[in-house]
């Protein structure tokens, strides 16, 4: 995969787009202020033609919907009901299906299904919301959220086209810890709740509602901070409309496609975390304390000047505490508290969910590294990015092998979750502390504002690690956070104690 090939694969700009650009540039270049105002006014009035077109769709769609609703709700004088059903699969799987029923007999039900047969081309629909939960607003299309807490309280709305044959197949959802039928207006929907995966599973709640007269299933994802009542009210407030546009079946993602994807994907395969070889002396350069590492970095060198291991956090400056409050990890004297370490085995989502296969209490240590960055080029470096990741690695016969902390009884596991909220994944500790003040650039603050040619800057970086990993620590300063083999051998700094 060569991503640089993308340049040759960008679609050509549409002719109308090119003409618009040329026309607008010509207009702008040739205008004085008065003319510009006129042009803008003209352009604004031209833009308004877009809005009325959308409004017209809305009006037309409502009329169309009213016409369609009547025969779709009553067939041959018999009322039709549509619903989403849910059945268990194993201990933690849920099979979600779609059903259409008539109030009298099965024969009529089969005919009723034909009423909802998906036409080709497919009429496109849009949905308008009459209710938005308090404190939420549109953050982006189909995404409602709390702008003050966008990472926590969110609803994502999705529409899935259902096509012929869907009614016989079910969608399998894994890691389900709660499922139930709920009433959404005059329909029956299904609510699903997923298990905690111990690693920040974000969209843990779902709601499915079936609208066969619009050839769609509503699939709503919502976060823990959104209540089921709020989700149901949001769904109840949806007004569906046909937009007047159509598309072909092969261009839409349908319910049967989701099911087919599951079938094609086969059973869930969970990779076992292994002490795999990362590289060898042929493709990894290891630097010791005091060595200048350069070449791979863009016009600068990095040197580890000092490494200290502490039992307390007194060396840290609270002005630089960011996502992690180090006081929470220490007693009132600043001594680091032991952590309860849980070794997590991922489940298959049907017969098992993520489970703790072993726990132990471990001493925690602060690894505090002093790094010197030197501009080795001829130009000033602005906003020099740095990111330090600690890896636990064993060196054996010229090979570098990922070192995995042993679980108490030797059980295999997939990742480690610590009681202080830290996760150790793939034998990696992510950067937790650095003493560079935020200068308003970017949002991470992990950059040096500028370095003149020949100038050096000192940065201290810290990580809280489990004591038993101290003999295996290597530092990668690749800005991606990974051990990168792009553009030559990877660079690691040996911090082993």
């Amino acid at each position, binding site marked *: 995969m060569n991503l640089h090939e993308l340049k040759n694969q960008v679609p050509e700009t549409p002719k109308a787009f090119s003409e618009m650009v*040329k026309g607008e540039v010509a207009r*702008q270049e040739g205008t004085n202020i008065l003319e510009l105002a006129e042009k803008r006014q003209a352009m604004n009035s031209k833009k308004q033609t877009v809005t009325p077109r959308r409004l017209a769709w809305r009006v037309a769609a409502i009329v169309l919907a009213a016409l369609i609703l009547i025969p779709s709700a009553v067939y041959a004088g018999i009322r039709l009901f549509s619903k989403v059903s849910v059945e268990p699969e194993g201990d933690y799987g849920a099979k979600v299906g779609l059903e259409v029923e008539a109030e009298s007999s099965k024969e009529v039900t089969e005919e009723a299904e034909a009423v909802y047969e998906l036409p080709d081309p497919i009429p496109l629909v849009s949905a308008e919301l009459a209710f938005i939960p308090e404190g939420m607003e549109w953050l982006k299309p*189909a995404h409602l959220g709390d702008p003050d807490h966008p990472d926590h309280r969110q609803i994502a709305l999705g529409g899935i086209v259902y096509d012929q044959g869907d009614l016989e197949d079910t969608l399998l959802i894994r890691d389900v810890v709660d499922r139930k039928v709920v009433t959404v207006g005059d329909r029956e929907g299904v609510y699903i709740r997923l298990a905690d995966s111990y690693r920040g599973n974000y969209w843990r709640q779902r709601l499915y509602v079936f609208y066969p007269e619009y050839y769609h299933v509503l699939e709503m994802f919502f976060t823990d901070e959104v209540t089921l009542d709020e989700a149901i009210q949001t769904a109840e407030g949806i007004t569906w409309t046909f937009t007047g546009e159509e598309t072909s079946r092969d261009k839409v993602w349908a319910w049967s496609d989701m099911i087919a994807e599951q079938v094609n994907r086969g059973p869930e395969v969970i990779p076992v975390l292994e002490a795999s070889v990362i590289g060898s002396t042929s493709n990894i350069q290891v630097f010791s304390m005091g060595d200048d590492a350069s070449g791979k970095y863009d016009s600068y060198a990095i040197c580890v000047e000092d490494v200290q291991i502490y039992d307390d956090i007194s060396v840290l400056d609270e002005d630089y505490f960011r996502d992690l409050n180090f006081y929470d990890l220490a007693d009132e004297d600043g001594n680091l508290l032991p952590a309860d370490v849980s070794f997590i085995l991922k489940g298959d989502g049907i017969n098992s969910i993520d489970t703790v296969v072993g726990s132990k209490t471990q001493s925690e240590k602060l690894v505090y590294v002093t790094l010197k960055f030197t501009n080795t080029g001829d130009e000033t470096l602005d906003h020099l990015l740095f990111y330090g990741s600690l890896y636990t690695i064993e060196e054996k016969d010229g090979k570098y092998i990922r070192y995995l902390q042993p679980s108490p009884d030797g059980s295999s596991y997939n990742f480690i979750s610590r009681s202080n909220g830290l996760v150790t994944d793939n034998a990696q500790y992510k950067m937790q502390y650095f003493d560079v003040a935020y200068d308003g650039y970017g949002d991470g603050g992990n950059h040096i504002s500028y370095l003149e040619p020949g100038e050096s800057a000192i940065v201290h970086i810290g990580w809280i690690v489990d004591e038993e990993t101290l003999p295996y620590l290597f530092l990668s300063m690749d800005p991606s956070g990974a051990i990168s083999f792009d553009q030559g051998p990877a660079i690691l700094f040996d911090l082993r104690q």
Partner: protein
Amino acid sequence: MNKQDLSALILDSERLLYATARTILLNDQDCQDAVQETIVKAFTNLRQLKKDRYARTWLVRILINECYDVLRRGQKIISLEASREAQERPSPVPEDYSDLYRAVEDLPEDLRIPVVLYYIDDFSVREIAGMMDISEGAVQKRLARARGKLRVALEGTAGTEALS
């Protein structure tokens, strides 16, 4: 930079503007609206551009803001076809696009924008960070995540891990 220079820049950047707008917006009409407004704003605010070498970055930043404005204007009504993308499902793209381009189109928006800006438009990580109001580290992380997802999509291999 004078108006003639800006005109030349915009005409030279036509494909860049289209590709960038398409990473955020869902149809050509919306792209056209956003780019048209971008051109107007660029000419109107040309004096705010302090250094010519930042002109391309400045132009794309205006465009990204305009694209989000277009989205906000249309937010009252959502397309349920398009909303699938919000949940990281495949979105339909014309058949004559390459597998790689299709895979990029299928990336979630927060990954797709840096990929297009970095690999198609040749902006640096630093420039992208400035345009998107995120840190360079965040850009690097998003590029790394995007590469992992693309590798899975194109090669069907297991997810890319940090140690690979």
